[in-house]
């Protein structure tokens, strides 16, 4: 104790310096999004690494129970198979690809291992990463609707920016019936609804209308379900509709998701780059 006190009194200025730097580091990692997402990806990867081992351990303890379950199931199946007369044979169908077009999107399935919905910008982690072909800026969809966009990947895990993010997510979405498109964002209060803005006032709206993605960005394919119109009012500032959309996918209980890979992305990127070059040339 005495030694500690002597150290402090001798190096008081240094201790004060370290104290100020610690305050700054805490601020850096708690207030800046880049550092936050880095930290979140690392902790999520560590978290799922540890819980993977724990799951493996507990599954060994459950083996006996699982074995018994399998035996009873096997018994029931055998009874079904041998104990009855066969009535109808299964029919196989074959589908011919008559269009013959190239494939644009492929999907990688994954499981959510960590999720949050109570922050201003939310993230979740999935157990697919760089080695499975996931990279950042890929869209993530769930069985019933859109879920987020990949922002960071490690070898086997990816961090996904959830659609419930107030500043980070702006998705182009359209009304299925009329085809008008607007910008989908989250206000930050209710995890079940998002807001669709920039829809002109003359577009007729009804509660229950379907909202889908429109494939204007290369992140989501067109026509992925987003949700249904739950209410609308005119935004007095802009004069556009302010539509609240009830999400069809409950982000709070997300489990299986699919990562969208756009096979034509580099090609789309290339044509976009020529546009940029053209604008630059015209500007000069």
């Amino acid at each position, binding site marked *: 104790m005495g030694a500690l006190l002597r150290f402090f009194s001798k190096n*008081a*200025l240094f201790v*004060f*310096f370290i104290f*100020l*730097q610690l*305050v*700054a*580091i*805490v*601020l*850096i990692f*708690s*207030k*800046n999004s*880049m*550092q936050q997402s*880095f930290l979140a990806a690392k902790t999520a990867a560590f978290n799922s690494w540890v819980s993977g081992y724990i799951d493996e351990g507990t599954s060994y303890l459950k083996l006996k129970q699982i074995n018994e379950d399998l035996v009873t199931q096997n018994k029931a199946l055998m009874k079904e198979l041998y104990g009855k007369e066969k009535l109808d044979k299964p029919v196989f169908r074959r589908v011919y690809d008559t269009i013959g077009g190239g494939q644009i999107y492929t999907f990688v399935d994954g499981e959510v291992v960590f999720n949050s919905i109570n922050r201003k910008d939310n993230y979740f982690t999935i157990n697919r990463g760089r080695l499975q072909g996931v990279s950042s800026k890929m869209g993530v969809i769930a069985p019933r609707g859109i879920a987020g966009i990949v922002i960071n990947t490690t070898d086997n895990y990816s961090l996904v920016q959830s659609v419930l993010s107030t500043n980070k997510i702006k998705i182009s979405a359209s009304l299925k019936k009329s085809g008008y498109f607007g910008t989908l964002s989250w206000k930050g209060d209710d995890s079940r609804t998002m807001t669709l803005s920039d829809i002109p006032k003359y577009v007729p709206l009804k509660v229950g209308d379907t909202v889908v993605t429109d494939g204007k960005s290369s992140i989501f394919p067109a026509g992925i379900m987003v949700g249904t119109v739950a209410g609308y009012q005119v935004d007095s500032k802009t004069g556009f509709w302010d539509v609240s959309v009830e999400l069809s996918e409950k982000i709070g209980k997300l489990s299986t998701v699919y990562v969208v890979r756009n096979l034509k992305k580099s090609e789309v990127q290339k044509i976009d780059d020529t546009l940029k070059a053209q604008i630059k040339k015209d500007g000069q």
Partner: protein
Amino acid sequence: MVSRNIASDLLLIALLTAFQVFILNRIALFGQYIPVLYPVFVMFYPFFRNQFQFLGLSFLLGLCVDAFLGTWGINAFATTVIAYFRTIIFRTSTDTTTDFFSFQSIQWTQFIFFIITSIFIHQFLVQFIEFFKFNRFFEILFNVIVTSIISFVFILAYTLAFKIKQKV
């Protein structure tokens, strides 16, 4: 020169922050390089005063700039580092071994070297923490160097305008 106390220091911090945030940050030279002037408070703070007060004020200055730019903690971190290591930077840029520090007593080349070293360390820390991508090291380093050079011109103009070298 008016004798400096804590009130005038705070006033100077407020002025430098306002100048940095409202004027310099809107001058983006060549579209992306922002001159940085506010570390002059740290560089030319009088020697032989209360070091705790100096460190605290430097931290406060960085935090004020951060508050306006929304980069919480990054500028505060870098500014406190150059404040703490100022005497070491001073010693390495001159070859003096005495405990006597003043800007009057040194050569112009040494004075300029001191400014360049300080602003480079400051910008290096700020930009690397801000971008936080180590695989783009050289891109960021280039950015740091260009920003340092532009800032150096502004700081030199400041020192000439206020005759810093003759006073401190």
